[in-house]
């Protein structure tokens, strides 16, 4: 029987794939494993226990940092998704014109600029504003996170818009829908999976950020990742593993919710 070419049948394919998957997931597996360690150490496993999870839940610093992380991520994701949706509409629902490519570049530039550069720039910029205004709340972190989340929210929304049949919006207009109603009843419902994907991506990216947060935060504004980084400088206990495991569960949960919602509306 004639077989079509398949890369899966090439020699060594399975081995390489296995090595890649091990490299990706073995460290995470070890981390999760040791979060259930009954002992103090990260080197020797002394039986299964949930004590480090309990310890994490009792640690006020962890609770504060987690809530702060969620607050920042939620706010930044919402604002950046709204901005990204408007940007995506403005760059796809228009005749191509000179400078459109430049606009794509501007919207996506935070993906290209090294994070550390943005971090230092924001540190200096916000320091100046702080001395002018005297305000030193969470607003700076939210603003910074919103800024670097926009391209992540923008990409899936734009992809969705580009794949959408433009005739549908014409049909809506033909059936007496004003431009706003056509958007509300046709474009938006069809765009929704893209918006949700953009939001989830922005949320996870914000939740995870260390570099920019480390530079921008004021005293007492630790997010969960910067708190963990701080703790690692001192004694390392399986408590960090437990927190990481919970973090992992949260992101798996977010991705799963997204997958289910996205599959329902095609």
């Amino acid at each position, binding site marked *: 029987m004639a077989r079509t070419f398949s890369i899966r049948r090439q020699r060594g394919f399975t081995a390489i794939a296995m090595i890649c998957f091990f490299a990706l997931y073995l460290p995470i597996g070890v981390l999760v494993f040791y979060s259930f360690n009954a002992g103090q150490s990260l080197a020797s496993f002394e039986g299964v226990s949930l004590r480090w999870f309990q310890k994490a839940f009792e640690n006020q610093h962890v609770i504060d940092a987690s809530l702060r992380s969620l607050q920042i991520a939620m706010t930044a994701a919402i604002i950046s998704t709204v901005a990204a949706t408007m940007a995506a509409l403005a760059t796809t629902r228009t005749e191509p014109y000179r400078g459109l490519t430049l606009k794509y570049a501007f919207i996506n530039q935070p993906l290209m600029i090294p994070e550390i550069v943005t971090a230092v720039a924001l540190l200096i910029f916000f320091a100046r504003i702080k001395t002018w205004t005297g305000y030193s709340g969470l607003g700076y972190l939210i603003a910074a996170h919103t800024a670097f989340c926009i391209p992540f929210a923008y990409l899936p929304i734009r992809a969705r818009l580009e794949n959408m*049949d433009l*005739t549908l919006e014409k049909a809506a*207009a*033909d*059936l*007496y829908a004003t431009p706003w109603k056509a958007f509300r*009843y046709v474009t938006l*419902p069809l765009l929704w999976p893209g918006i949700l994907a953009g939001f989830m991506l922005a949320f996870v990216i914000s939740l995870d950020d260390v570099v920019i947060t480390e530079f921008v935060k004021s005293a007492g504004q630790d997010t969960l990742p910067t708190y963990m980084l701080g703790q690692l400088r001192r004694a390392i206990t399986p408590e960090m593993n437990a927190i990481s495991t919970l973090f992992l569960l949260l992101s798996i949960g977010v991705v799963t919710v997204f997958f289910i919602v996205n599959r329902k509306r*095609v």
Partner: protein
Amino acid sequence: MPHMAELSAVEIRNVSKVFGFGEFAFAAVDNTSVSIRQNEFFTLLGPSGCGKTTLLRLIAGFEFPTSGDIMLSGENIAAMPPFKRPVNTVFQSYALFPHMTVAENIGFGLNMLGRPKQEVRDRVAAMLKLVRMEALAGRRTSQISGGQQQRVALARALAPQPKVLLLDEPLSALDYKLRKDMQIELKRLQAETGITFIFVTHDQEEALTMSDRIAVMSSGKILQVGNPREIYDAPADRFVADFIGETNFLKGRIASVDNGIASVETAMAGVISATMPKDFNADGEVTVVLRPEHASLCPPDQPGVCQMSGTLENVVYFGTDTHYHVRLSDNETVFTLREQNKPLQGARFAEGDRVGIAIEANAARVLRN
């Protein structure tokens, strides 16, 4: 038809639509005027790129004319946005809303117009019945077949009771059998609703079978408007004659004209009697058109029966009839003719045979220009 002060359903007045600028400017619709009557099935027919779809989009409001007026029941709608025009479209791709059910799709226009809920419900039910889709009201549009999607698209466009229904090659995605059914269905819907239909197609057979009147378009211009019989029997020019059905063109010289019948001397077929177009006076070089079904094969060299002779080059069997391609004695012109197949009759002639061609009386026609 009495020509009282009846208002046209749609009147296109000197409309042009130019795309691009400067040396790249291109008139998709070129200073065109046409008047479409109330309650008629009007077809815009032409090859792709002739401007028929652009003209339809100008009426729908998806494009705006560069110049000229578009009157809808006497009101100039040329600059009106599409959502204000009492005109609905059946799109080539149907463009059904994938996130809505069949019933929601059909009710969309009425909901946008802000009609009361009960009225929308009644109207949707009536439309579902009209297109025989009652059983599938709650289905998603992705869960129904192409033919059913076509019906939903029709019902959706008819539900708001537009003054004019625009149909952009709506049958082109359907297979042959379904297409034939939908042609009949469309005629029935038009008769039942009494709405003016403007139908765009490149399929001349579809145009001939369905239309009250046809406008043949080429290069942004309307070349001829008439009922199917006029378009087929009395094509205004060579393009129309060539585009609608198969046609033979014979060059000749008018010898005399008597009461609208010209005697044309042709090199290939001797003297042919050909009908002159109305109000057409010409002498000298003309072209005579002859439809393939108005000629038949005969044994060659029978004076008085056969006007022409040549070599049978090609025999194509079509079931209902057989097409013959005959290379005439000048070795250049290929004459096409079509004979209906009779029961129990085998092939009378074979490829390579020398054959004669007999032309029916009153079949030939002199072409304007």
